[in-house]
């Protein structure tokens, strides 16, 4: 679909386009952080590309790539309303590495960059107002990094101490909610715990139903 954009980019930048991929019509070009804004400005202004619709900017964390490769992929998705094609530009950033803001190219990018900063801690040079956008100022760390603990919460209001809180009875027991986040992943990767979710474990007979489980086992205190 957007092969001609990739061709155009390769013609214009040559070796500075580090890699191009295309998967079922999704064309991706990977560039160095130093060329980030220049390539973006080119795809916006070049008459054959004309990427005038900024769709999204986001990031992805691959900590397992370190130390050979930087851990973050910064991704911008743009589209041309005139030519009806789209392209995805990527650059790879190490932890603490900065990249120039795309705000001067697409004004809307500065909102998305705040979100990327909020979730991944990637900083953008030249951004006019790089603050957290979804989370609160008191939040420590960046929650979409893979090394953010999955069960770590940072309450703004201290939780109440109440007998009911923390030991709720069904229907608010262990089978409700998002049980796969409470899986012991280390054990699962070692092959010791094949449980996917409490409900599936129940079907497969790996776990007793709540009604058969005594209050002592679930940790709930049932008052007669």
């Amino acid at each position, binding site marked *: 679909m957007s092969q001609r954009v990739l061709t155009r980019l390769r013609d214009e930048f040559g070796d500075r386009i580090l890699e191009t991929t295309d998967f079922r019509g999704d064309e991706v070009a990977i560039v160095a952080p130093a060329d980030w804004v220049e390539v973006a400005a080119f795809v916006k202004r070049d008459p054959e590309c004309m990427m005038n619709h900024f769709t999204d900017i986001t990031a992805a964390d691959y900590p397992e790539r370190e130390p050979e490769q930087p851990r973050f992929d910064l991704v911008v998705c743009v589209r041309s309303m005139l030519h009806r094609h789209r392209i995805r530009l990527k650059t790879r950033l190490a932890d603490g590495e900065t990249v120039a803001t795309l705000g001067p190219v697409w004004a809307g990018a500065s909102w998305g960059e705040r979100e990327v900063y909020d979730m991944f801690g990637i900083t953008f040079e030249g951004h006019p107002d790089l603050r957290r956008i979804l989370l609160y100022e008191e939040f420590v760390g960046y929650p979409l990094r893979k090394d953010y603990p999955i069960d770590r*919460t940072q309450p703004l*209001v201290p*939780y*109440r101490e109440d007998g009911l*809180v923390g030991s709720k009875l069904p229907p608010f027991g262990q089978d*409700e*909610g998002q049980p796969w986040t409470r899986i012991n992943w280390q054990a699962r990767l070692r092959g010791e715990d094949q449980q996917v979710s409490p409900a599936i474990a129940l079907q497969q007979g790996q776990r007793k139903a709540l009604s058969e489980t005594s209050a002592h086992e679930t940790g709930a205190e049932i008052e007669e």
Partner: protein
Amino acid sequence: MGEVKVLQTGESGFATTRFDALLAWARKYSLFQYPFATACCGMEFFSVASSRYDIARFGAEAPRFSPRQADLLWVVGTIVQRQAPILKRIYDQMTDPKWVIAFGTCASCGGFYDNYTTVPGIDKLIPVDIYIPGCPPRPEAVFDGLILLQEKISNGNREPLVVPPRELPQLTQLRKKEPA
């Protein structure tokens, strides 16, 4: 209305009861509600509040968007950590006596959000009177919750209660039978 004694003398008469029972009876049928709707359960709340299901039939008609004038706080939807101070403040601004209903699974226990952003149940922040499970709850479940709350008000009971699931109805046929 508690213990009511009716004394009839001739054509006219009078009834006696305890004052707190009379007060509780008045309170349970004049609930001024503050809808704190934050997520998709809000749609279900609108449905309950509007003409088809019409919560006004149960004496809980008037929504008040000032916590000072409200005595029933409906927490409808997911509460995120960033909203927690707002909810706490709204609750603190309400005047006594006040009641809280956790509408839906997210408000009751965080629902399927088990992560850095969501408060796992509003009872971590404020005391809750009635939990209405469901994602979202059916209007019938909401009415069950409201009636449960009215019973609590008339009993003076402040213990948290969960709306029990209704009995499963007979399975109804979804499609018309093919003509023979």
